[in-house]
């Protein structure tokens, strides 16, 4: 008898709960939440499928070459000796990507930091609005137009007016020796430097803007000049700036079209920055549509894509974590 009462009470409590859930007002909200939650999961599906599909396409190459793929230095879809089998190694591509991205950071980061400081510390507000718009436009120009400009405007200029004096001054260093070529690793790095400026400068500017006023006021009150105040701002926003630089690196590593058009597309372990080269991204853009046979050729290109995918994910997650920490610390200080 007691049991029956308990069961019936339990059942009625459940039906009451269900009634509340499906009552007119609540059900709309819950359905809404479920639908939008379902849609937002697209990002998991896309990233998951991306790893799965690109991993699947590169499986043949992974199986054939294993880890050798990462440090091999030959790229022969059709070997000169017909009896030999095709061989693929990505080390020169990784080398090309590293060197061009390195040049891009070396040239692009100081300029970006200068811009960020000018916009956040020095320039008057009205001026800032217009100029940051111009710098953002630099990010809006398509990669292929950068490439076109690189081929027909930048390369002739560099080849005639910049590279010869550069070589005569720095020619004692091995990396500035050899024949000067317009389409080269250095040209690629310079174009990339221009392309990362909007990214790095915009994020650094936000980081500097997030530095609490009290920090600036404290140091100015001690009689510091504007530059000395800026030094405090920079050191306060240090980790955020590092995050911005890493995001810029991510952009440089993944940039495809512009660099394909100016780097000269030659598979070799170059030793001079005036040599033509290849990057991970540019070899895919340049060879993918022609890589019909053998099947392992296209699989090797897909594996290059897989390396890029993983590289981009790691760089991004790393940068986000640093920026997230930096802005959180800044916000915390503001509250105090």
């Amino acid at each position, binding site marked *: 008898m007691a049991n029956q009462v308990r069961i019936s009470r339990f059942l009625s409590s459940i039906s009451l709960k269900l009634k509340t859930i499906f009552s007119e007002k609540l059900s*709309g909200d819950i359905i809404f939440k479920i639908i939008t939650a379902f849609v937002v999961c697209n990002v998991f599906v896309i990233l998951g499928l991306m790893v799965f599909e690109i991993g699947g*396409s590169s499986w043949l190459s992974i199986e054939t070459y294993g880890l050798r793929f990462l440090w091999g230095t030959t790229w022969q879809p059709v070997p000169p000796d017909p009896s030999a089998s095709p061989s693929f190694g990505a080390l020169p591509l990784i080398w090309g990507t590293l060197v061009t991205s390195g040049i891009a950071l070396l040239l692009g980061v100081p300029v970006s930091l*200068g811009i960020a400081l*000018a916009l956040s510390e020095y320039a008057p507000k009205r001026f800032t609005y217009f100029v940051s718009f111009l*710098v953002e436009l630099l990010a809006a120009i398509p990669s*292929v137009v950068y490439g076109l400009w690189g081929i027909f405007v930048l390369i002739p200029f560099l080849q005639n007016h910049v590279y010869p004096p550069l070589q005569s001054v720095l020619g004692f260093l091995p990396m500035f020796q050899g024949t000067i070529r317009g389409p080269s690793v250095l040209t690629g790095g310079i174009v990339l430097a221009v392309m990362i400026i909007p990214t790095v400068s915009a994020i650094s500017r936000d980081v500097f803007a997030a530095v609490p006023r009290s920090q600036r006021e404290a140091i100015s009150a001690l009689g510091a000049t*504007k530059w000395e105040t800026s030094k405090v701002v920079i050191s306060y926003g240090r980790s955020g700036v590092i995050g911005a630089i890493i995001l810029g690196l991510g952009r440089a590593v993944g940039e495809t079209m512009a660099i394909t058009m100016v780097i000269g597309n030659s598979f070799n372990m170059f030793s001079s920055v005036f040599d033509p080269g290849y990057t991970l991204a540019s070899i*895919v853009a340049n060879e993918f549509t022609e890589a019909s046979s053998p099947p392992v050729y296209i699989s090797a290109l897909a594996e290059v894509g897989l390396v890029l995918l993983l590289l981009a994910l790691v760089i991004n997650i790393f940068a986000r974590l640093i920026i997230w920490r930096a802005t959180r610390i800044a916000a915390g200080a503001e509250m105090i």
Partner: protein
Amino acid sequence: MSNYALRKAKDKIMRSLAYMALAIALIPLVSILLETAIRGASAINIDFIVERIPPLGQPGGGIGPAIQGTIIVVGIASLIGVPIGVFSGIYLAEFRETKLASTARFLSDALSNMPSIVVGIFSWALIVTVIGWSVIAGAIALSIMMIPVVTRTTEEAIKLVPGTIREAALALGVPRWKTTLTVVLSGARKGIITGILLAIARISGETAPLLLTVLGSRFWFSGFTDPTAALPLSIFNFSQSPYSGVDWPKAWGASMILIFMILGINIMVRYVMRDKYG
């Protein structure tokens, strides 16, 4: 020189270096815009916009199919990307504290910085290996690049809607979902449209993913499962041509039209948004 004068001088030097950095960054921008305008202007006329694409080296013709192809591929990409992006953004803004929201936000940022060529390989592996080089594959690649941008800008736009507006609707007894879909969304309309337009501007210029999906063609649009021409691809093809006198001006002409479209969208967005944030 006294210590104070030295510090003053240092300050001046650093200030001029900062402004110089600004000037250095604007040189490429000005140079790209000017060169495109000067070299492109000679190629552009009505025929150039409406005529079909000739083979490399053949004078005359235009880039009509490329403009058509870009509009179609970007259009389909927007049809896929905008609803998904906006609804994702609504979730991120409305349920911002949930674990799902913070994870999705994080991955969305990672996806928006994915190299475009990787997205191209993905769409190739997913679609092209099944149905061949096609408009659909290109549109899917571009929509993947669009979704994270629209998602995050929608989220930010909704967050800017004042809480009082939402509370006013809720106080009248409007259910929450209805409040969001009518009152909040219309308050965030401007920001969301900005995000969508900027995303469209961004994907219109993408080349690498199209190279691996729609392949490129010289002909007018012939079906969703066929290859198509696109403006960025035409710029690339013309620029690689050995016929300098015939094809290079066409590359500049095509890039002038592309820049015109993209900068037009950017400037329009600035103008529309100005009264709100300017």
